[in-house]
């Protein structure tokens, strides 16, 4: 009886350990995850799925967004990856659009994606300032890039700073030398 009870504790400990491993696999690995790569100038920023899951200080109930500063005239190259860590294939419409003050400015990308089991899909698009309204010199304007797939919506706020153009120096006219 004592041996049985003694082993019972060991079995229960083993069950807890197996439960931990199962949670690591099911909750920590299985699912749909998206990663965003944004290149501005020569720097690439990566927004891992963990960023959206962790909350990063956003109060409960508030939507989390990601902030990127950029200079007016710079192009933003987006690479968006959706990883399907599931046993079934996943089909969804992926949409990216530019918004300002809660109004859609234009669509950046829209494509129906079908991702196989334990596979990933990669999408690319570019945001150019040529399509946006130029801010007053010395100020900046913010635009929100909304990426939507399934029931998931990601918000990336881009702050374009426009320093203004340097004045063109006047052309130097050579003074004729008196004869």
């Amino acid at each position: 009886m004592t041996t049985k009870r003694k082993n019972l504790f060991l079995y229960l400990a083993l069950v807890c350990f197996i439960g931990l491993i199962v949670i690591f696999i099911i909750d920590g690995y299985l699912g749909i995850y998206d990663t965003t790569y944004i290149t501005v100038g020569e720097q690439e920023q990566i927004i891992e799925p963990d960023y959206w899951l962790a909350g990063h200080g956003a109060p409960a109930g508030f939507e989390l967004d990601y902030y990127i500063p950029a200079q007016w005239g710079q192009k933003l190259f987006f690479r968006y990856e959706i990883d399907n860590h599931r046993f079934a294939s996943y089909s969804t419409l992926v949409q990216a659009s530019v918004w300002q003050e809660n109004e859609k400015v234009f669509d950046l990308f829209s494509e129906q994606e079908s991702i196989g089991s334990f596979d990933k899909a990669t999408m690319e698009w570019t945001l150019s300032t040529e399509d946006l309204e130029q801010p007053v010199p010395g100020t900046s304007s913010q635009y929100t890039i909304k990426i939507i797939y399934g029931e998931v919506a990601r918000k990336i706020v881009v702050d374009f700073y426009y320093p203004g153009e340097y004045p063109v120096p006047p052309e130097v006219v050579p003074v004729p030398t008196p004869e």
Partner: protein
Amino acid sequence: MRTYILYGFGILLCIAGIGYLASEYVNYISEPGKLVCLILIVGMLGFLGKYFEKIGW
């Protein structure tokens, strides 16, 4: 006594190792998942403690 200290040290290293590997490779656990993991870890250590107590440690 020295053996127990060594055992304790070994168990601590094992727990630290599992924790390190989990933090490196398991990135996307949700908040409820973390809570259940914590409960399971407490349960596992508690049951292991009872087991060692029963076998005469």
